[in-house]
């Protein structure tokens, strides 16, 4: 039976993976997916804390629902920006978008 610690370690590993992907991916869509990974790591944290620490209150799970909603809104805006970048720069490699010094 997995305990709270197992879930927290899984979430921390996923968060670190997302961060690693965000820093190393060149493709903008890959970067967006890494951000989603970070958000979902946080969701695991919330749901695990909610299940093990406050089983009678639902705050943690409601927060996870809010995060999913916000992540969807962010992804919508993010993909729109990626579309514009593709139209103007003919590519979505983040390291090639450098009119201004980074």
């Amino acid at each position, binding site marked *: 039976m997995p305990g709270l610690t197992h879930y927290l370690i899984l979430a921390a590993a996923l968060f670190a993976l997302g961060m690693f992907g965000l820093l190393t991916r060149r493709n903008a869509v890959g970067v967006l997916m890494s951000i989603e990974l*970070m958000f979902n790591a*946080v969701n695991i944290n919330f749901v695990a804390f909610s299940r093990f620490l406050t089983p009678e209150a639902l*705050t943690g799970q409601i927060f996870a629902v809010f995060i999913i909603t916000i992540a969807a809104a962010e992804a919508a805006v993010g993909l729109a920006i990626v579309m514009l970048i593709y139209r103007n720069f003919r590519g979505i490699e983040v390291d090639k978008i450098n009119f201004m010094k*980074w």
Partner: protein
Amino acid sequence: MGFNWILISPEIAVLATGFILLILDLFIGKSRGFLLTAVSFIGIMVALWLNYQNYSIMGVGFQGIVINDPIGFYFKIIFCMGTLLTVFISSTYVSREMKGMGEYYVLIFIATFGMMVMASSADLITIFLGLEVMSIPLYVLAGIHRGRLRGREAAMKYFLLGAFASGFLLYGIALIFGAYGSTNLVEISQRFLFSSGFSGILTGAGMVFLLVGFGFKIAAAPFHMWVPDVYEGATAPVTAFMSAGPKAAAFAVLFRLFSVFQPVISDNFTTILWILAVITMLWGNLLALSQKNIKRMLAYSSIAHAGYVLIALTVGGRDGISAGLFYLLIYTIVNIGAFSIIIFFSGKNEKYENISDYAGFGYKYPFAAIAMTVFMLALAGFPATAGFAGKYKIFVAAINSGFIWLAIIGIFNSLVSVWYYIGVVVSMYMKQPRDESPTVILSMTLMVAVLVAFIGTVYLGLFPDDWIALSDWAGSHYSWASIVGSLVR
């Protein structure tokens, strides 16, 4: 315990104005841009008036997720001032450069709504929602100009790093939730007595993550990489808006969180904030010295100003918070004033953005040049301008609380900053003008904005007493325990 709508009436006014603008934009022609400006003006005035009505009401509403206290009251004045000035400087710009897009105003108002929610929330869920409601319109605003390729790039960079910061912020909130089993700040502060070593570790780690997340939003030094590019790439009115309100909103949350968690976080946090303040000031000022583009220069200067407010955060308590509030108010007025002159000088399509382009403008546009000189001196902190009053209050607060070295480093940094602010004045008055002269377009609303910012800068520099008293009053209500004790639910 019903829903106390009065507590969030300023927020409702701002959001309603946004929706009215959205619908109004459908029915009026693109040439009637002034109608949108007028409605925006009325909306902000209504919000300010409603905020003033809430002046004496302190309370927690909506099952404890919304709090109305003097600090929130003060921050809402700052946001309304910032949005008011932004609407005025944008009016002609939007109809000239962006073919009168109504969405522009709608996004500004929704972002302002998000900031106000951030400043007046007493729950980590609403703080996060407010932050996202503020940030998502800003990502769009950064790239809203159709013909501006650099704006697209700015939107991309802002979005990626902003979402990255949100991830850190959420992880921090999750750890704090794990420590106390609640996201409500009132409930959390009541559970401090029963906290164990485990929750102490989780709180410490959570606060570090929160500091990283908000460090991106306030543009503190190790997390500032996006600032110069986004400020340069976005159009000037958007940059003016971005540099004032969102920074103040992130500071509002930081002030609140650090006063709530004061009893449980260790003294190491003072050291962390101390180092963060010093790095931010030094990095911003030193890199600003070598900038040629004026928007990029002001971007680094805004990093440096975040460093000065971080001094106030380090000091904390009544003195620190009142100094920080007063400084953010002044910074909002002066910085948007400086950007309004940039909009005036940069001409069509923002062609003239380099400091060297302003050569000879001191004689060509005497009034605008005088206003720009005053704004630059105020940003540098010259006596008799508002910037001096703000910096004086911060440094005095630091010295009184025993942070002598922090004050000395801050004063040294203000001296360094004089160099690059004066560079703009020197370019306007003492350089030979170029052959091709930019065509500058006069605009009524822009002039009003410049006038308001100018009067504000001089007035707050010469007679700051009323506003200092107001910020002291707001700062004296920092203590979370006394607020929670005296609340009418």
